[in-house]
């Protein structure tokens, strides 16, 4: 991507948002726009999600789904106790998920805290995608993850640091306090500023995933409004959760966000990605998500550029299912590596 392309994209996103909300991104204008979006009926949404969850994905479809799920995973470690060694091990797992079967696809990215980005980049070496389509990305959580409780200057410095260290993707958190008290303009401006900070000196830009922390937004109406807000402000992805609060990704929440992305595509022709994160631990659960993606926004969304799973333990369950599909036997957790 050239500088002028990026500038154009930036400009058109901003212009588009202003045109849609009918003026500057003030609290009042945004409020008028976001509250004009049709509401969500919780019972109906959950019923639809449950219905999608009953799809029976078997044999050849299951085989395809398993490899697809692996290729969509952001393999994640976000612990205070993380070490460079653990990150190197994670990268190894990302590159060769199943040491016993080299036909197993790589995951999409590794997701780490900002200070671990250099270690992840070093460990990936030539396998680091670094802005190309091939290889594995490095995603960094930033903006005072997970709470977002810091000044804007600190948040932006956090982003700068990670991008400078080679992060291809930035997972930012929105200011839930501002959102819940109706300061939509502040949330919007912050996303725009972070997006700006994702730019690299070479003219490229790290992809921006906007974490809504749906568990704290509490209602589906809020999730829907926050999704629109994040997309209007220029987020490349909308992401459910940090994984650090009790309620993380759920199928109804993800369905609701996918519906926003679908409507945005209808409205503007632009594609935005969705990343459910936290709490998706089994192959069976992950399959429900890809069914929901395919039946809501279409199969073309099942690509790392438009859909990701934020997960750590999911990969091993999928690998065990994969081994069972190829060998006919269920091997158990001792036959997949810890991380």
């Amino acid at each position, binding site marked *: 991507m050239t500088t002028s392309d990026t500038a154009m994209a930036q400009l058109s996103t901003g212009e588009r948002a202003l045109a849609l909300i009918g003026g500057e991104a003030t609290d009042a204008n945004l409020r008028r726009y976001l509250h004009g979006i049709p*509401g*969500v009926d919780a019972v*109906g949404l959950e019923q639809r999600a449950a219905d999608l969850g*009953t799809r029976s994905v078997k*044999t050849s*479809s299951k085989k395809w789904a398993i490899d697809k799920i692996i290729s969509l995973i952001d393999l994640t470690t976000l612990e205070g106790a993380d070490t460079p060694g653990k990150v190197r091990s994670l990268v190894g797992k990302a590159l060769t998920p199943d040491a016993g079967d080299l036909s197993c696809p790589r995951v999409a990215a590794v997701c780490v805290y900002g200070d671990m980005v250099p270690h992840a980049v070093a460990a990936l070496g030539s396998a680091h995608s670094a802005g190309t389509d091939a290889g594995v990305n490095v995603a960094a959580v930033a903006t005072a993850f997970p709470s977002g409780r810091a000044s804007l200057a600190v948040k932006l410095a956090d982003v700068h640091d990670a991008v400078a260290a080679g992060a291809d993707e930035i997972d930012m958190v929105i200011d839930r306090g501002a959102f819940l008290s109706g300061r939509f303009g502040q949330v919007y401006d912050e996303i725009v500023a972070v997006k700006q900070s994702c730019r690299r000196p070479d003219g490229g830009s790290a992809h921006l995933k906007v974490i809504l922390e749906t568990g704290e937004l509490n209602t589906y109406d809020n999730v829907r409004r926050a999704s629109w807000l994040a997309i209007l402000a220029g987020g490349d992805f909308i992401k459910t959760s940090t994984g650090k609060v009790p309620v993380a990704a759920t199928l109804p929440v993800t369905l609701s966000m996918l519906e926003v992305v679908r409507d945005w595509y209808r409205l503007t022709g632009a594609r935005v990605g969705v990343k459910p994160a936290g709490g998706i631990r089994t192959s069976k659960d992950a399959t429900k998500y890809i069914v929901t993606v395919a039946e809501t926004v279409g199969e073309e969304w099942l690509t790392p550029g438009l859909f990701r799973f934020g997960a750590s333990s999911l990969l091993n369950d999928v690998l065990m299912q994969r081994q069972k599909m190829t060998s006919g036997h269920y091997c158990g957790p001792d036959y997949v590596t810890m991380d």
Partner: protein
Amino acid sequence: MSFLDYAPAPESQALLNLRADYGLFIDGQFVAGRGEPFQSINPATEKQIAMIAHADAADVDAAVSAARRAYDKTWSKLSGSDRGKYLFRIARLVQERARELAVAETLDNGKPIKESRDVDVPLVAAWFFYYAGWADKLDHAGVGPTPSARGVAAQVIPWNFPLLMLAWKIAPALAAGNTVVLKPAETTSLTALLFAEILQQADLPAGVVNIVTGGRDTGKALVGHPGVNLVAFTGSTGAGRAIARSVAGTDKKVILELGGKAANIVFDDAPIDQAIEGIVNGIFFNQGHVCCAGSRLLVQESIHDDVIERLKARLSTLRLGDPMDKNTDIGAINSAEQLARIRELTDIGEQEGAERWSPDCVLPETGFWFKPTIFTNVSTSHRIARDEVFGPVLSVLTFRTPAEAVAKANNTPYGLSAGIWTEKGSRMLAVADKLRAGVIWANTFNRFDPASPFGGYKESGYGREGGRHGLAAYLKPAAGRAAARTVTAAPAASVAPAVASPAEKTPVSRKKAAK
């Protein structure tokens, strides 16, 4: 092959052990019918499933006599709590054999396995559990203290939800202390006969429930039989009218649950994604073979184009095909006769100037199939906006104000159900108040619960099924304390044909029932 062409996921039929021939279930036994047996076919393949006995007037008479005997000798003498125990036992057996019943229902009716598995059969069990709880609480059914049963109930059910309609009829009848002769629809007798096996398994006293299979003549003989005290019918308005005529002047109580042409009203502030799901569920659930189907979509003019665009996109993801596949959304039309009717009415719709649209989907070569279809540009005078199609066909009309929505919704001879989609609670209540329909769903559609009464206004019938109201229909108030004690035997003696009770018949052991 794309991911959305999910690999086949057929439900196993191994659980199902069907016989080649089924008799009538009379007095606790399967017996041969005197009429010419007929075949029951799988509407998805047109292959024969089994031969079904055809009951003639003499068979019906035997069934009614057995029901009368069972009423006089055992059922009316059991306590409410003992009747409840039988109903609980039936409910548990339905749950135990749920998979088998679902497979049989899908095989015989053509509905998708996911619907028979997730809707029909669980509701059947729920209905028996619900009315089992009522059996010893009849004093609270709303017909005064110590009400009595009516006696022998003649029940005729349709083919759209064969086992569920059976449960809607049999559960309250037995809870209230009646005995039953039930006639399933000609094209869908199978699950009623499997249910008869469940009754044997449950040790239900012989004759309490009798099932006579056959055609229209069988149904006619049953509702016209002088020995029945109550007629309950679910089906077309035409047939319901004939039944009402045939029982006029007798003392038979009649409950009719007939056709519908429900309006599904979508206001511009509706939760749009859920409204689209509700519209789809309202008319394409069970191939639209639902008397309360939301077959008229009334959408506010300002959002008409958006709704139609979203609806078309959603319909394109529906999967039509093998009903036994777990991923099938739209199954087969139940019979060639019904398919012909749907074709006729949709052709008329086109001729009258409505705009027809269906998603691209390949129809299987054998069997009876109809693509999900929507008609736009429909006016209230079009036949597709007035006649019950009873198929996967939606007519879309528009309105501008709530008053116009109400006027259009009520402008039908039917009045079974309606739907309202809005985020504004006060509008929801105000509109619901003005709609002349028995069931009104708000921000949902086609939801059923045994505790909720169901039934229609106008040509959609009279009487209610479900809930306390559904129970009350099978009861009559005590004339007085003394009368209440003798009333169980009195009507039996005066109406029933005299049939000697076989001496070797022993009344059911109450201890056994208690287990």
